[in-house]
């Protein structure tokens, strides 16, 4: 027997704030859903049932006492397991951090708690967010709720699967090259990568610092907007945080797209499979029907995005991941001297993909290669930004596929890193440019699996981006309700 369709975060928060529903009941209802399908899907590294019930009870107490319980009162949220949670294991799905309990909360986690959200668990990911299928987890893969023989995408695969399965209406992920948008597309949910610096990275375990950005995953555009409003805004603990308040997104959602200039991004659409490309075309026409001005747009340098990304991200990662050396926290494999201990620890603690990227990045930074690789990739980044600026001179938004294909089978690409990396081809340009982009579900592919359409905007262009996403959602092609395995 199917559970009742999951309520949205907007509905839950309204009902809890009004005293119509108790947060503890909402929490138990979602934990029950987790109990039903978690074994099959493996969305979580850690379910926080007790902490969640305690947080929910505190929300109920606030409501009963007449205090403002916050805009996300009683809303269950799951966190990608690379976000630090005080006293709660934070593993990045890596052996090297197994058992580590951070002594502090990430800024986004603090903001969620203050907003009355109820964190129900930490979700699985590709180790240190390096991957596009969630198969690189040291603790086993997550499966796609729409078809458990398929991957949920990655690296925020656990978060996307949890939202798609109705475990929670909201999730946080991190997006370095597409790690929110790609799994959102493959799982049929909304996923947002905000402008670089809009959301504090403090407490997000770093993969590639100049690209990483935390963002929401949700079943609806409105829920994603609500969550982003809560987590966005300046944080003095992150030097790269944009010094301005969170944008007002929810209020803008019903403003429509009348008069917005939307360009279909040719370079990114050409490479997509025909069924995905058709959905992008359909989405463009839907926006046009809603009043947007439509044409084609070009960002030529975006074709170099993937190659530049796979130099920059590994380079920064090679440095960010140096600290996992067995001296201060996490795994230690002992050795006769400190150097031997480092090597033994890191060799045992990191999985193959992480090692691959650390080596690639170390090589790209090493003496004699810096200019040709890392330095050149940073210059290409400038070219991509310039091309985007040219496109945005005549457009408000750009439209593209989120992924070249729908969800692929587990194991299909694990033996061929470059084939796996190609999953990010449509998403990395926004990370390199530091610009926002979101994926909104828009129908399905020939295989019946969800397709995501990507809306790209210039830096800090989140409001228009969300308006377009709301219009696409309203066009009616997106799947609704929790994903169930097709029989």
């Amino acid at each position, binding site marked *: 027997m199917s559970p009742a369709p999951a309520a949205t975060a907007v509905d839950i928060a309204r009902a809890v704030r009004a005293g119509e529903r108790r947060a503890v009941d909402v929490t138990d209802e979602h934990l029950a859903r987790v109990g039903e399908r978690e074994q099959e899907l493996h969305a979580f590294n850690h379910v926080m049932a007790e902490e969640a019930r305690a947080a929910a009870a505190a929300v109920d107490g606030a409501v009963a006492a007449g205090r403002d319980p916050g805009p996300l009162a009683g809303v269950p949220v799951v966190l990608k397991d690379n976000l630090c949670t005080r006293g709660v294991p934070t593993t990045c799905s890596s052996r090297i951090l197994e058992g580590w309990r951070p002594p502090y909360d990430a800024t986004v986690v603090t903001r969620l708690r203050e907003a009355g959200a109820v964190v129900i668990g930490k979700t699985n990911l590709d180790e240190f967010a390096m991957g596009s299928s969630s198969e690189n987890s040291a603790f086993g893969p997550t499966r796609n709720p729409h078809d458990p023989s398929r991957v949920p995408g990655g690296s925020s695969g656990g978060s996307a699967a949890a939202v798609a399965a109705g475990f929670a209406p909201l999730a946080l992920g991190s997006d370095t090259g597409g790690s929110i948008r790609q799994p959102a597309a493959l799982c049929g949910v909304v996923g947002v990568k905000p402008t670089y610096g809009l959301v504090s990275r403090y407490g997000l*375990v770093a993969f590639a*610092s100049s690209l990483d950005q935390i963002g929401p995953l949700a079943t609806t555009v409105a829920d994603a907007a609500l969550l982003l409003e809560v987590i966005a805004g300046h944080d003095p603990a992150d*030097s790269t945080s944009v010094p301005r308040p969170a944008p007002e997104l929810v209020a803008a959602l019903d403003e429509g797209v009348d008069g917005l200039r939307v360009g279909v991004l040719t370079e990114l659409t050409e490479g997509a499979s025909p069924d995905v490309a058709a959905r992008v075309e359909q989405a463009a026409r839907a926006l046009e029907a809603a009043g947007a001005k439509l044409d084609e747009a070009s960002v030529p340098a975006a074709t170099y995005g993937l190659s530049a990304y796979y130099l920059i991200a590994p380079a*920064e990662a090679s440095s960010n991941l*140096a600290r996992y050396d067995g001296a201060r926290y996490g795994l230690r494999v002992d050795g006769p001297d400190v150097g031997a201990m*480092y090597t033994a620890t890191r060799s045992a603690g990191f999985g193959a993909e992480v090692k691959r990227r650390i080596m690639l990045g*170390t090589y790209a*930074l090493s003496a004699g290669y810096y200019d040709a690789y890392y330095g050149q990739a940073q210059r290409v980044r400038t070219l991509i930004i310039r091309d985007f600026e040219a496109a945005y001179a005549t457009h408000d938004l750009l439209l593209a596929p989120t992924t070249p294909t729908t969800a692929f089978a587990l194991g299909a690409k694990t033996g061929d890193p470059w084939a796996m990396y190609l999953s990010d081809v449509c998403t990395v340009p926004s990370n390199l440019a530091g610009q926002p982009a979101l994926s909104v579900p828009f129908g399905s592919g020939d295989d019946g699996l969800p397709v995501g359409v990507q809306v790209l905007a210039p830096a800090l262009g989140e409001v228009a981006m969300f308006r377009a996403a709301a219009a696409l959602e309203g066009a009616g092609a997106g799947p609704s309700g929790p994903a169930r395995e097709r029989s």
Partner: protein
Amino acid sequence: MTATATGWETVVGLEVHCELATATKLFCGCRNAFGDEPNTNVCPVCLGLPGSLPVLNRQAVELAMRIGAALHCEVRPSIFHRKNYFYPDMPKDYQISQYDEPINVGGWLDLPDGTRVGVTRAHLEEDTGKTTHVGTSGRIHGADRALVDYNRAGVPLVEIVSEPDIRSPEQAAAYVNELRALLVAVGASDARMEEGSLRIDANVSVRPLRSGPQPAAGATELGTRAEIKNLNSVRSLRRALDHETARQSALLEAGAPVVQETRHWNEDEGRTSSMRSKEEAFDYRYFPEPDLVPVAPDEQWRAAVADTLPVLPAARRESLAAKAGVAPAEVALVVDRGLDDLVEAVIDGGADPRLALARAANELAADLDRARALDPAAFTALLRMEADRRLTATQAKSVLAELLSSGGDPAEIAAAAGYEALGGDVLAEAVDAAVAAHPAEWARLRDGEQKLMGFFVGKVMAATRGRADGRAVTEALRTRL
């Protein structure tokens, strides 16, 4: 060991690491304090915990700018890089440092002997934690484990890199002393070497003296240099430079090359040894620190820093020396201890300059905290009493000690202590008594055995319990002769 091998000139460039006197660390709000219990001034940032991010301390930037301005550097827009290497004292296994775009470039420092030493750069970086090697010997060799305290990790440092303009161990010592005085004067650092807040690496090479026995060829070019680490005092610096000069010149005289390498100074053994482990060639893989944004001090900030710089030691030495009528080198200690304002004030008040300098360099320098609170008028009055021989030197020092500890009027202190200059009668009686008591010695003095003068002065001083003025006693004895 000889200071320099004959025929060879030492060429030295110094890298001085100076801990800044901020309240907090460079990238987090942990206290910047020396001597606290291990690992009590730590947080996610300075422990390099996953997810933590650095935020730059504005005061550290300002102090770096003060150092730059005082060293006549160009204060520039700058960025931070990551210097990647694995070592247990570095929590992130990279150090955040400035690399090819440092905040200060191209200045100089003038030494008391008139030498101008170029300053290549003075950049900001974070300090490392403190490693203790534990085991049989307590030193790095023979230790079986190491313990790490991260209280110092992330403390702000400015690394001041000189040009290779230094030509002797003495000059190197003078450079460090002058730099210390400057760092203290601008309020950038307490510059306490014994607490590690000033640490020195030396780049040393030798080359033939142009006028020496070696051929002149190549003497204007620099030899291959070695970098000497672990110099924790000015004394170590001088010893290490002496040793290294001898080592390198001996190699060259034997026809062997000097290897460009890093060498460790062993204080106990008094020698340097190669640090390079065989397989390791360091490749720091510098790249711009993505967690920080550029520092671009505007003109207003730079001007404000320059405007609030104090008068620097070199200028202060010249000022005081001119006022006292002595050479600048003679007032270096008084300026170094920050007593020059006081000494200038008492000279202006009519005190004898040499006497004022002597008391400042000795009694006041020994009790600096109190000396800084000393009332210049009282000090002036005391110096005049001594110059007028109303007090003996011993009595004056005693009054000064009282002034330092309790303050007050020197005349009243002297009176209360019974320090009235001895009348001529009392002195004459004491001289008579001394002569009568030691007729044989007196005869020998009269015969020209001058060293006995001291004997009689001592006897008279003892008889008057030190109240007599030494010069007056000598005079009375001479008259008697």
